[in-house]
């Protein structure tokens, strides 16, 4: 067998990096969802692999459920700062108040609020970002 060989994780990583670069190149306003949790920490590392030595060419976005531990928020902010990224924070409460989403009946977790089909609401993106 030749040495030109990737194991399964390296292989999946090549796909993730490819997709991130396509997104950066093709979309007008992409963002990386970053909550500070384990999945999004992994995504950030993939983004570093995709874009270094440049800065990651998209802002981070987190929609707070209001149920986060303070340590998580602290970590999220610190990590974004370390990477020199702009962090946009919105909240589920805000989305409820504006009618962008509604609580899902029977769901205690606020990770999955009900969101109307896209196209039915237009949101101005003018609210200033908290960084």
């Amino acid at each position, binding site marked *: 067998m030749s040495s030109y060989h990737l194991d399964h994780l390296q292989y999946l990583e090549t796909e993730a990096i*490819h997709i991130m670069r396509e997104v950066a190149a093709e979309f007008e306003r992409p963002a990386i969802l970053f909550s500070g949790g384990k999945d999004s920490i992994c995504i950030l590392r993939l983004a570093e*692999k995709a874009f270094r030595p440049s800065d990651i060419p998209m802002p981070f976005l987190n929609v707070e459920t209001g149920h986060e531990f303070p340590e998580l928020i602290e970590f999220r902010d610190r990590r974004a700062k370390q990477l020199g990224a702009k962090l946009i924070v919105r909240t589920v409460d805000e989305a409820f108040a504006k009618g962008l989403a509604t609580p899902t009946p029977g769901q205690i977790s606020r990770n999955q609020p009900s969101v109307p089909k896209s196209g039915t609401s237009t949101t101005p993106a003018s609210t200033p970002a908290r960084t």
Partner: protein
Amino acid sequence: MPHTQHPIELLRFNTCGSVDDGKSTLIGRLLYDSKSIMEDQMEALERSADITGGGAINLANLTDGLRAEREQGITIDVAYRYFATPRRKFIVADTPGHVQYTRNMVTGASTANLSIVLVDARLGVIEQTRRHTYLAALLGIPHLVIAVNKMDLVDWSEDRFLEIRDEIESFLPKLDAFKDVKFIPISALNGDNVVDASKHTPWYCGPTLLGHLETVHIASDWSLSGLRFPVQWVNRPNNPTDKTLHDFRGLSGQLAGGIVKVGQKIMVLPSGMKSTVKELWTYDGSLKEAFCPQPVTVVLEHDLDVSRGDILVGLDHLPGMASELRGRVCWMNQRPLQRGKKYFLKHTSQTVQAIVTSLDSRINIQTFDPEPEPAELAANDIGEVRIRTAKPIVFDAYSNNRLTGSFILIEQGTNATVAAGMLYPPTELVKPEYNDFAI
């Protein structure tokens, strides 16, 4: 590679068959027997077995999430399922639906190493078998498994198995595809020859299905012959605080073919400008060489004007470059393919305007023969077309390179992906002395 032992490889496959051939049962069996299901899923399964199954677990329920979603009107084209054995990791593309089958299969199987075509032993070879085998060949999937399922319902008859095998073997040469084809008699329901060899088939001396999935040689499924590096993103840190980075200008992308080495001479196409590779930058440190499908950031000796959509190639094994293309397309839209209509064509990292200038034929799925000059191509039809692009495309035959030989057509206005295409070989290759600086 840092590994001292064999690295664990990843095999992607998909399962095809018509309704009730046993796809869900087979995937369930593989997940169950390889112990890849979560404990809570397992408990739910066992509970449902007590209530509805008279004690027997319904393996199809493991993958029935998809069905439920479909019934709620949620469209899911392809669901990916993961399982692993100590030897390999597997990703199964579970492609539901019969109406949109061609589209789903093209989506789910375009990156697959292997296709499993299920045949119900009682029904034998039916139109779906031919269609799915044809699609697997068309998509250039290197490895094919014909799993003759429900062998328990034909008394484990070797004659029946051979009859089906012979019929399929009679049309395989016409497809001129596949590195290898395996025929395996199984019972997905009872597990015979899926993970463990069956005591009912003493006449069968081949591997079990999982045994084959674990050992089929996939390391050479990528094309390592001609260097192809489509530029995805120009990497310019422009960092005023860091001197070393201030002048950094890299070309980020993923190798779509071949091997690239530091010091190697390359050509940028379509311009024809030449340079030498100075550095292969990655986050984990610079490399001396990189190979398909690795992602890297290439730094060149000269500061050439290179942007997204350009492609770096080596000076041997040169590709074709043309704005008149020929190939086969799978049509995937309810509105039929129209000759003369403008589409966007996306090929590697560039998107250009394109017109289908001619519809040469439509493939008859029964005979695999092209039928000349059809009026149109409807959804799920496969046809041969000629396309003219607004700018020349740098490409290879799909049969040589699945990445630089494929494209999609995008409908203008709706942005819907309406076709997946596979290019025929170029009539002329780029010459090593080619350049087009003048532009």
